[in-house]
């Protein structure tokens, strides 16, 4: 798949934003006033910014409101609804925390659940696609959720939880790659089933339908060199999980040093997740590539 910056930014930032909202909704930390304002601004900034970024890839963004109508069948529609609901509920909750110094915990818990649901529905947009075996696995939502919670924990300054989440998310990432690398072959779809000619002999794509390019090739066929992949994976796992973990467990003294390290951990983590997301898209082979002799 084409690793469009809009979807990479969207999934990375909104994952962080809703992760942080989840923690805030659960009262970790149960902040109020100006401190709360900063936390919520960060959370809403990531979540809304991500959502806005996602509209950049729309052909007709002015009609985006229509996307809320098909919740019965469409994960994209469900995501939209969950996101708006989460933002509204958490907005109210935040209002109480920032301006009234009050926590309406019921709202907070519902908001946290909706935030997680948003991340889940986002992941299901990808997971549901049988056309992309690397996404069409239970590990995909697990990865999205653990990443979101990890980011949330880091941003929320959940010192005790964050190292555990980092370790778990890193493990999920490794598992996702291991499993994902087998997924296309395991799907049973190949150029033989794509053309129906597989039982006649070995099938090879000859002339493409057009020598010129097209939407399908631009959107779905993205070839990444194996060396490049290994390099990026190393970067993603190191920046996203290993280094932040080290930052957190380094035995340093002093408020400033701790906070600086925590801030560094957040930045490293974001960079790592972005790299992971780039790979998530760039490495995802769509079965339509088979018709063009590509994977």
């Amino acid at each position: 798949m084409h690793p469009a910056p809009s979807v990479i930014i969207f999934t990375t930032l909104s994952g962080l934003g809703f992760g942080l909202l989840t923690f805030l909704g659960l009262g970790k930390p149960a902040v109020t006033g100006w401190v709360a304002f900063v936390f919520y601004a960060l959370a809403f900034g990531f979540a809304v910014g991500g959502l806005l970024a996602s509209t950049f890839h729309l052909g007709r963004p002015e009609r985006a409101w229509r996307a809320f109508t098909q919740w019965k069948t469409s994960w994209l529609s469900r995501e939209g609804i969950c996101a708006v609901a989460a933002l509204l509920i958490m907005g109210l909750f935040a209002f109480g925390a920032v301006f009234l110094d009050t926590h309406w915990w019921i709202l907070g818990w519902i908001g946290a659940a909706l935030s997680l649901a948003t991340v889940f529905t986002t992941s299901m947009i990808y997971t549901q696609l049988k056309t992309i075996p690397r996404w069409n696995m239970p590990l995909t939502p697990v990865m999205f959720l653990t990443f979101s919670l990890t980011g949330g924990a880091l941003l929320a300054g959940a010192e005790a939880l964050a190292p555990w989440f980092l370790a778990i998310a890193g493990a999920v990432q490794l598992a996702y790659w291991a499993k994902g690398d087998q997924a296309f072959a395991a799907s049973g779809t190949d150029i033989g089933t794509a053309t129906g000619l597989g039982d006649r002999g070995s099938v090879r794509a000859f002339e493409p339908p057009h020598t010129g390019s097209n939407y399908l090739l631009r959107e779905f066929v993205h070839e990444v060199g194996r060396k490049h992949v290994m390099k990026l994976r190393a970067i993603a796992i190191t920046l996203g999980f290993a280094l932040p973990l080290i930052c957190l467990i380094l035995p340093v003294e002093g408020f400033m040093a701790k906070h600086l390290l925590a801030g560094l951990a957040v930045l490293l983590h974001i960079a790592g997740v972005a790299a992971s997301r780039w790979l998530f898209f760039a490495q995802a082979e769509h079965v339509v590539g088979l018709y063009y002799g590509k994977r």
Partner: protein
Amino acid sequence: MTQLPTHTDRKMGLVIDLDTCVGCHACVISCKGWNTENYGAPLSDQNAYGSDPSGTFLNRVHSYEVQPSPCSSQPDPAAQLVHFPKSCLHCEDAPCVTVCPTGASYKRVEDGIVLVNEDHCIGCGLCAWSCPYGARELDQAAGVMKKCTLCVDRIYNENLPEVDRVPSCVRTCPAGARHFGDLGDPDSDVSKLVAERGGMDLMPELGTKPVNKYLPPRPKDQIDDQIDVLAPLLTPVAEEPKGFLGWLDKALDKLPGHSEGGSN
């Protein structure tokens, strides 16, 4: 409405004969012409006269080489070339419909045609992501998803003579490799053709249940195997030229009106 209808009255679709398609691209351009001028936004082209020209097409013809495995009767089989037109298969279980967040994508109850309501499409591209066949292309000028309409604006069009109420690709196909009809009716010509020729689905494992069927190429390059049966036909009438003239004389005598006389 992106729920799929529980059933459709008919299953209109195409049957594409891979044994006959010569790969001429007639269907590709006829489709481009009709659908540029008709249903919805025109099929646009980018860099039309420059480097890397690219445009929206609803039907494209691929080609594949098939290399059969050697066997005892054919130790060195020749590779085969198969031309392969591909457009929307109007699946019964069309994933492109259910993923649509706006309801722009839908499958018609009366004939099973999968369409995009371009006024509602936001151009998110998810339907194209969900389609295994590459049937949908996002038009770069209009920002909406384009796909084969099975020429829904031809097949019932009362402004066209009845004989022309078929998709434009079918009307134009010089080799007659494209057939149109109701694949839900077992007695229709297309259904019979599918039954006779072993019509097949593309990527059946994905469970999309395509309505369009492909007729596989007939077995090829079998003539060498025939020679044992046909060898008697080639028994020489004589080994020497003289003997040949003797045979000729007798053979000519057997022709009507040649019973008398002989060569000088």
